[in-house]
C-alpha cells in the first residue's frame, strides 16, 4: 500500500509541468498588478506586466490586466481589444466580465455595462469586482437597497478596492449619513490618492460632521491630483469655492468658482454659485451676468428655477431695476418650493 502511494507521488511529480497552468507561479505578481491598477499606480502595473509578458507569454490574465492598463491610460480601442480577447479566452471568469463591464460603464455604454455586470455576478457571487460593479449599476438603476447590499459584500471581501469603497460612500452621502460616508471616502482616498472624486466627497462629508480642518485638507489633496482622466472631478473647484465662501474667504472662493465656471460652463449650479458670491462681494453687475447665465443653462446641477428667480429678484433689486426685481419676485412667489422627503 505504502509503495503504491510512493509510486503515484513519483508519477505526479514527474509529469508536473503538464499539470501546471500558463500563469502558475505568477499569481503574486498578478495580484500586485491588480492592486496597482486598483489604486491607479500605472507605472508599477506597467513595469510588472512587461516582465510578466516575457516570463508568461501564454498567461491570459496578463491580457486582462493589459486591458485595464490601457483603459486607465485612456487607450480605449486597445483596451477594448484586450477585453474581447480575454473574455473569448476565458468567458467564465467573472472578473473579466466585471472589468469589461466597468469599461463600458466608463464609456457610458450603460446597456452593455448592465448586461456584463449581471453576467459577472451570475458566474461568481463572491467576486468582489463583480459585486462592486453590479452594486454600482443597481444604484444607478435606483435599486439602492440591493446595490448597497452588494457593495457592502464587496468591501467585506476586498476592503482594498477603492472603487467599491467610493461607491459605498456615495450611498451614505445620498442618505445624508455623513459619518459613514466619511469612513468609506477616507478609505477610498487613502487607497487611491489619485482619485480627486474621493477627496471631494470626503471633504463634503467632513464639513457635515464638523471637521473643518479635515475638509480643507481633503480639498487641497483633491486639487493636487485633479487631472483629466477617469478620476477627474469637474466640481471640485465648485465645492471648494462654496466652502471657502462659507469660511468668509471670498477672494479665494472667487478664484475657485472662476475655475468652476471654466470647467463646467454648461452647468447652472456653477454660475449660480458664482453669482451668489458676486452678490456677497457687492459686485452686482457681475452677479447679474452670472445669474442670467445660470438661468439660461439647461443642465441644472441641482439648482432649480425657484433658486434662480429668488437670486435674480435680489440682483435686480440691488441694481435698482424695480421692474425686473418685481418680475422675479413675483416668479419667486408663484413657484412652489420643492417637496422634500416624506419624513424628517
Amino acid at each position, binding site marked *: 500500500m505504502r509503495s503504491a502511494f510512493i509510486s503515484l507521488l513519483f508519477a505526479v511529480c514527474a509529469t508536473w509541468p503538464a499539470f501546471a497552468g500558463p500563469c502558475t507561479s505568477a499569481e503574486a505578481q498578478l495580484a500586485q498588478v491588480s492592486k496597482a491598477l486598483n489604486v491607479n499606480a500605472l507605472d508599477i502595473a506597467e513595469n510588472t506586466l512587461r516582465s510578466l509578458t516575457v516570463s508568461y507569454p501564454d498567461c491570459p490574465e496578463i491580457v486582462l490586466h493589459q486591458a485595464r492598463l490601457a483603459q486607465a491610460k485612456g487607450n480605449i480601442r486597445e483596451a477594448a481589444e484586450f477585453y474581447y480577447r480575454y473574455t473569448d479566452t476565458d468567458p467564465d471568469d467573472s472578473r473579466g466580465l466585471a472589468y469589461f463591464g466597468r469599461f463600458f460603464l466608463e464609456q457610458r455604454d450603460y446597456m452593455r455595462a448592465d448586461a456584463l455586470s449581471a453576467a459577472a455576478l451570475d458566474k461568481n457571487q463572491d467576486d468582489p469586482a463583480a459585486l462592486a460593479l453590479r452594486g454600482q449599476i443597481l444604484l444607478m438603476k435606483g435599486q439602492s437597497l440591493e446595490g448597497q447590499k452588494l457593495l457592502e459584500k464587496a468591501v467585506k471581501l476586498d476592503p482594498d478596492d477603492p472603487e467599491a469603497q467610493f461607491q459605498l460612500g456615495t450611498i451614505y452621502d445620498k442618505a*445624508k*449619513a*455623513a*459619518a*459613514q460616508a466619511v469612513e468609506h471616502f477616507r478609505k477610498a482616498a487613502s487607497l487611491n490618492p489619485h482619485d480627486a472624486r474621493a477627496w471631494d466627497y470626503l471633504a463634503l462629508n467632513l*464639513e*457635515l460632521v*464638523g471637521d*473643518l480642518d479635515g475638509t480643507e485638507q481633503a480639498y487641497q489633496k483633491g486639487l493636487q491630483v485633479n487631472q483629466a482622466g477617469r478620476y477627474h472631478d469637474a466640481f471640485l473647484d465648485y465645492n471648494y469655492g462654496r466652502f471657502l*465662501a*462659507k*469660511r*468668509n474667504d471670498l477672494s479665494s472662493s472667487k478664484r475657485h468658482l472662476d475655475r468652476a465656471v471654466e470647467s463646467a460652463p454648461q452647468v447652472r449650479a456653477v454660475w449660480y454659485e458664482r453669482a*451668489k458670491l458676486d452678490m456677497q462681494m457687492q459686485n452686482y453687475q457681475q452677479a447679474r451676468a452670472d445669474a442670467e447665465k445660470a438661468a439660461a443653462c439647461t443642465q441644472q446641477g441641482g439648482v432649480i428655477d*425657484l*433658486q*434662480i*428667480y*429668488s*437670486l435674480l*429678484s*435680489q440682483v435686480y*433689486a*440691488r441694481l435698482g431695476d424695480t421692474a425686473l*426685481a418685481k418680475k422675479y*419676485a413675483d416668479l*419667486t*412667489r408663484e413657484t412652489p*418650493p*420643492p*417637496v*422634500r*422627503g*416624506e*419624513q*424628517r
Partner: protein
Amino acid sequence: MTPRKLFTVALVVALAAPPRVLWGADAGRIQFENRQRNSGISFVLDNGTLPDKPMIDGIPGGVALLDYDNDGYLDIFFTNGASLPGLAKEGDKFSNRLYHNNHDGTFTDVTDHAGLRGEGYSVGAAAADYDNDGRTDLYVTGFDRNFLYHNNGDGTFTDVTTKAGVTGVSPTGKKLWGISAAWLDYDNDGKLDLFVVNYLDWSFATSRVCGSPGNRLSCSPTLYKGEPNILYHNNGDGTFTDVSEIMGISGSIGKGMGVAIADYNDDGWMDIFVANDNDRNFLFKNRGGKAFDEMGVESFVAYTDSGLPVSSMGVDFRDWNNDGKPSLIITTLGGEIYPLFRNEGNGFFSYESYKAGIGFRSLKMSGWGAGIQDFDNDGYKDLFTANSHVSENADLDGQQHYRQANAVFRNTHDGIFKDVSGDGGPGMQIRAAHRGCAFGDLNNDGKIDVVVSAIGSPAELLYNTSTGGNHWILIKTVGVKSNRDGIGTRIKVTTASGFVQYNHVTTAGSYASSNDPRVHFGLAVDTVIKEIELKWPSGTLQVLRNVKADQVLTVTEE
C-alpha cells in the same frame, strides 16, 4: 519721536478706536444654572405621543413669563398637550400650569385657583394687557381651541374667548392650528391687537404615517397644505374683529410656527415676521396701520441664501449689532443651519449665518425657542436656542439627535457669535426634547434668565449666573396714550461713555412663547446712563437723562 509726540499719537489712536474699546466691557463667561429641582416647579410637557407619531406630537411647548399679580416678579405659565387622538386634557398630566413666583427662588402652582388648566391640545402662549386695565392677560393657542383669558386682578382669570371673538376660527368656520401669537398695536390706536400664527391643514382623518412600523418619524409638513394667519383688531370694548383679509394677511398662506415683531424700517409702525416651516417666511410690512404688504421675498428673508425654504420654527427680531436696526435669528432642523439675517436698513436683509460664525456650528442643531438677549450684560446681545429634533426617533438617522443640549452664542462685538455652550455651566449641558423657551429676569438681578419647556422631562429654569459683574437696567414701560404695556416702544440708550444700544418692547418672539415685557440693556462697566430715549407707539418722544444703572426702572408715558 519726543515723548509729547508719542503721547499725542497714542491719544489719537485711542480716540480713533471704537468707544467700546475705551469702555472696557468685562468679558465674563455666560453661565446658566438649572434651579428647577428646588423651585417647586414640577411641570413636564406631555405631548400625548402615539406610536405612529402624528404631526401634532412634535410641536407643543409654549412658555410665558408674565407678572400676573403685579408684584414685580415674573410668574411662569406652561402650555401642555392632551391625550391623542381624543384631544382631551385627561388628568393633571395634560394641564397647562401657572406658577406664582415667591421671590425666593421658589414657585407655587396656582393653576387651579387661576382657572388656567385649559382644554384641548394647547401649544403657544402670548401675554399682554389687552384691555389696558393694568393687569396682564393671556392668550393660549392650540390645535383645536384657542383661549383668551382675562386677568381679573385677584389671581383668577376668566375665559373670554368667544365674547372677544378670538377663537382662532377662520371665516370659513374651520378652527386653524394655532402655534404662536403676538400682541402688537399695529395701528397705534393705543389698544393691543392680536396676531395668531397658524400651521397646517392637518387632522387625524388626513394624517399620514412616516417611517417604518415601530420606528415612526414625524412627517414632513410638505405633505400638508398650509393655513392663513389671523390678525384681530382690538375694538377697545373687550371684543376683536378679524381683519386678516382687509389688512392683507390672510392672502399669504404659510406653515407658520414662530412670530416676532419689530419696526424694521423705523417708520413708527410695528412689522411682523412669521417663520414658516418648509415654506417661505413672511415679513409683513406695516403700511401706516392701514394694511400690510408681505415683503419676505423683496427683503430677502423669505428663503436662505440658497433660495430654498428651511424648517423655520422659532424666531427673534432685535438689534444685535447696536445699529438701531432689528435683525433676525431663526431656528431650524438639523442638516440646515440657523438663518441669521442682518437688517441693512435699506429694506434688505443680508444672510450672515456663516459670516457671523453660527453656520457650521448650528448645522447639527435642531432648534425651537430662540432669543437675541444680552446674557453677559456687556452691551451686545447674544443668541440662545432651545434645541431638540422634532422626531422622537430621530436618532435612527445616526446624524440627528432627538434630545439635544441648548446653545448659547456669545456676541464678540465684531459681528461674530461664538458658541460658548460648552462653557455655559451644567444648565447648558442638559440633553432633552426642548421646545419653547421664554426670556426674562426671574429674580430681578439684572441678568436675563431662560425658562425652557421639554417634552417628557422637567421644564428647566436656567438662571443666568454669568460672571463679569457688568451693570444693567430693566425698563418697564407704562403707556398712557399708547397701549398700557407700551408694546412697540422703541428705546435707545446712551451710556455715560457714549455707547448706544437699541431694543423695543415686545413679549413676542422665540417659539410659541411670551417673554418678559421689560426691556433689558447690559451696560458693561457704566453705572450711569446719559440718556434714555423712548419712542412710544403714540408718537410721543420721551427722554430721560442721567439714569442710574442696576435698577428696574418704570417709565410712564408723558
